[in-house]
């Protein structure tokens, strides 16, 4: 009996071991051979490509170099950043104002570089706020957020900020449909079908100054708008939006919004909509939304609340919107460089439908419709379909393109990037990602002329890719060389926040325009101090304005007396430096807001309300020079009603104030 047991145990172990060795191994999860040399950028050398990466729930946008994967800068956009004083300085507070008041954070999902003739022109980059619906415009001269506009009638600005081929419009489609702002929204949630609407905003962009303005909104059926892309070339004048939850469920969407075999890609003829708006067909609707702009010469932002928006109800017009059936809750909806092919990616699909713009036009002409969805014509699936990519993988999400007629699609469920040919729809290659790729980007891969040599995959799961840092991990990105027939992984690098979409552009388009300093002559800040001799302290009731300068290695003034409890002190600091890379910092002990970082030629203001009597130190936080540690000063705070006169000085050790008081 015992013998039998032993025999069974031994043979059992043997079988287990044999089976284990039979388990197929995954494709290599490391860089093969010496491929990593391709990602090596020697110290002192520049990267070929700028990569603008959304920060997801960090609310910011980060800038990486490709192929090195080096992080250059995190641009504060929708979230406060005490490091840079963003949202804390008096000048930047208005940038984060909304109709809800000051919102200190958001969820930035997608980025878009401004375009001219369908190619990146290196002027601006746009980002969307997914939570409190907004769109931001960032200057690529200063890498600073210059403008933020809020979107009324929206909830969850997801299919945004995609733009037309000459940056005529940035669009913002609402993810959540909700009752519009001008009607009573106090309705039962299960009246979704009657009361909830989906709004698409078309934001015009000033040709020269980039100024944003909501040109019009399209009122559409209540569904979830997910992603969008503008047509280009032949399809310029059209916009394509992926829609899910066409079941119009208001609860347990996971199940209830996955019932239909096909949802839609909505094709919008925005040129037509523009015509109707011009003809006065839109209706003015009451709304409340913030429009915030940062002025580069005053170094200050202003926030304005607007009260009206023009709306066009697409149901009233038969030639603006058409629905193209697309399998399984489409997510990505991407247009190839020619503008002829539109790629739909059903999150749960096992194939990729590719629609043809010219077939779609013919179908519309021939009225090859299959009924209507909430009043909008549904084009017959086959009538607009160019073909399907068969068995590409599971869970396609996003597609970008190279210059050779190939497409690259990310697959979340099967965790891979698949390369396929747009013309013959044949799968050419596949590489694993680590793990569960979301968005991907090819250098200028959404433009008319992709310059794709690199592809970057942004993953949702990181797990064992780096040294562990407790339960909370960085996100992972992988870089692939796509210049050959086979994609080759050459680098793996961590990213900030949670990257969703990102865009990459040849460095030469941006590098040369990057600003080095702000010219002090051009500084029109209300409280600028253009020289130490102009520095002063001015009391207006209980408001104290400190006109302070900084230069290596002192503040002027650096001794201030006569501040009293109950005062509100505004330190207006002007950095007098006119040399590249000499910022100064400014910090006050016990300040409840943040520090300031002041660039050469810039003026920035920190508000400080003293909370105790005594001496409060101030100092420079940015190691500016060999004598940075000497760059400090003191503010004397006296009790309310104190007779200590208001004095300020630099380089005078005599206690003038006490002398004055003794007299």
């Amino acid at each position, binding site marked *: 009996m015992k013998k039998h047991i032993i025999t069974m145990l031994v043979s059992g172990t043997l079988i287990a071991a044999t089976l284990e060795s039979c388990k197929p191994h995954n494709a290599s999860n490391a860089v093969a051979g010496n491929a990593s040399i391709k990602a090596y950028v020697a110290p002192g050398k520049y990267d070929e490509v700028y990569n603008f990466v959304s920060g997801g729930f960090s609310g910011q946008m980060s800038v990486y170099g490709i192929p090195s994967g080096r992080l250059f800068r995190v641009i504060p956009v929708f979230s406060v950043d005490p490091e840079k004083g963003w949202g804390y300085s008096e000048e930047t507070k208005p940038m984060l104002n909304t109709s809800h008041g000051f919102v200190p954070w958001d969820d930035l999902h997608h980025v878009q570089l401004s375009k001219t003739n369908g190619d990146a022109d290196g002027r601006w980059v746009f980002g969307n706020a997914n939570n409190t619906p907004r769109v931001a415009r960032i200057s690529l001269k200063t890498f600073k957020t210059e403008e933020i506009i809020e979107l009324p009638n929206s909830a969850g600005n997801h299919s945004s900020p995609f733009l037309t081929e000459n940056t005529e419009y940035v669009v913002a489609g609402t993810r959540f449909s909700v009752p519009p702002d001008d009607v009573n929204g106090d309705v039962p949630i299960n009246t979704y079908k009657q009361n909830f609407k989906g709004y698409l905003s078309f934001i015009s962009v000033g040709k020269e100054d980039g100024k944003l303005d909501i040109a019009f909104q399209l009122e559409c059926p209540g569904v979830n708008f997910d992603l969008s892309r503008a047509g280009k070339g032949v399809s310029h004048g059209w916009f394509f939006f992926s829609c899910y939850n066409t079941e119009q469920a208001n609860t347990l969407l996971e199940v209830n919004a996955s019932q239909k075999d096909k949802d839609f890609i909505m094709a919008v003829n925005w040129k037509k909509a523009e015509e109707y708006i011009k003809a006065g067909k839109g209706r003015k609707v009451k709304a409340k939304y913030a429009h915030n702009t940062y002025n580069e010469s005053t170094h200050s932002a202003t926030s304005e609340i607007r009260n009206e928006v023009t709306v066009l109800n697409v149901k009233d017009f038969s030639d603006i919107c058409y629905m193209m059936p697309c399998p399984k809750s489409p997510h990505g909806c991407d247009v190839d460089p020619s503008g002829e092919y539109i790629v739909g990616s059903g999150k749960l699909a096992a194939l990729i439908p590719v629609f043809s713009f010219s077939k779609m036009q013919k179908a519309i002409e021939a009225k090859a419709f299959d009924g209507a969805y909430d009043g909008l014509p549904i084009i017959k699936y086959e009538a607009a379909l160019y073909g399907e990519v068969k068995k590409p993988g599971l869970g396609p999400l996003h597609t970008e393109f190279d210059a050779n007629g190939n497409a690259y699609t990310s697959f979340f469920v099967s965790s891979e990037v698949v390369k396929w040919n747009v013309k013959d729809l044949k799968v050419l290659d596949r590489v694993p990602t680590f793990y569960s790729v979301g968005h991907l980007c090819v250098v200028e891969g959404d433009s008319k002329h992709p310059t794709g040599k690199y592809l970057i995959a942004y993953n949702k799961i990181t797990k064992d890719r780096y040294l562990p840092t407790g339960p909370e991990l960085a996100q992972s990105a992988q870089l692939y060389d796509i210049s050959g027939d086979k994609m080759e992984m050459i680098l793996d690098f961590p990213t900030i926040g949670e990257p969703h979409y990102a865009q990459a552009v040849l460095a030469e388009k941006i590098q040369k325009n990057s600003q080095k300093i702000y010219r002090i002559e051009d500084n029109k800040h209300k409280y600028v101090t253009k020289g130490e001799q102009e520095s002063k302290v001015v009391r207006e009731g209980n408001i104290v304005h400190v006109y302070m300068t900084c230069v290596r290695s002192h503040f002027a003034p650096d001794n201030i007396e006569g501040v009293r409890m109950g005062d509100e002190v505004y330190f207006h600091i002007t950095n007098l430096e*006119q040399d590249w890379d000499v910022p100064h910092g400014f910090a006050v002990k016990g300040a409840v807001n943040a520090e300031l970082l002041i660039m050469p030629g810039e003026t920035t203001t920190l508000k400080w309300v003293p909370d105790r009597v005594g001496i409060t130190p101030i100092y420079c936080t940015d190691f500016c020079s060999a*004598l940075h540690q000497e760059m400090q000063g003191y503010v004397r705070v006296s009790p309310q009603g104190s007779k200590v006169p208001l004095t300020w000085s630099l380089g005078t050790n005599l206690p003038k104030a006490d002398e004055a008081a003794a007299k």
Partner: protein
Amino acid sequence: MTALFLLKKLIMKNKLSGWSKVLLILSSALLVYSVFVPIWQIELDAPQYPEGLNLKIYADKLGGDVEIINGLNHYIGMKTLHTVDFVEFSILIYIILFFALFAIITAILGKKKLLYALLFAFVLFGVVAMLDFYRWEYDYGHDLNPHAAIILPGMAYQPPLIGFKQLLNFGAYSIPDIGGWMFISSGICMMIAAIKEFKFSS
């Protein structure tokens, strides 16, 4: 006897050749042009300034990164540089234009004596100008504020008159700028003309 003969020959042949006149006109043109471009430059390199800092000296002003250099020089207590502090900048332009005019007149009158006088005066001016430049450099490099943040005993910060010198973390490279090279070329033109005239006449 020989001396007398030579003198006679000189007087007789006291006419400039066509070539010499062309050279004089060229030298005059170079001088006029040099007024509009920097004459001298002091290039400063430091680890923190890979792009370099450039002090440009024009006939009538200081240019280039003067403000940045002034900002840095306060650490060692050097006086700040300002165009108005140099009387030279208000007269230099006239001296140069005077030489340009002198060269033209010499070409028109075609007198050899004038040419020799021009060359002599021009070389003398060049030497005096360089001595003056040296004096300023010495003054700025040695007359330092005793309360400066950085004081190294025995250390002076006089830039080189011409060539390279290491001053703390800065390497200073002092050379003629485009206007200076024109100035030198102008002198060479005069010299070639003078040598040719002298040779032909002997």
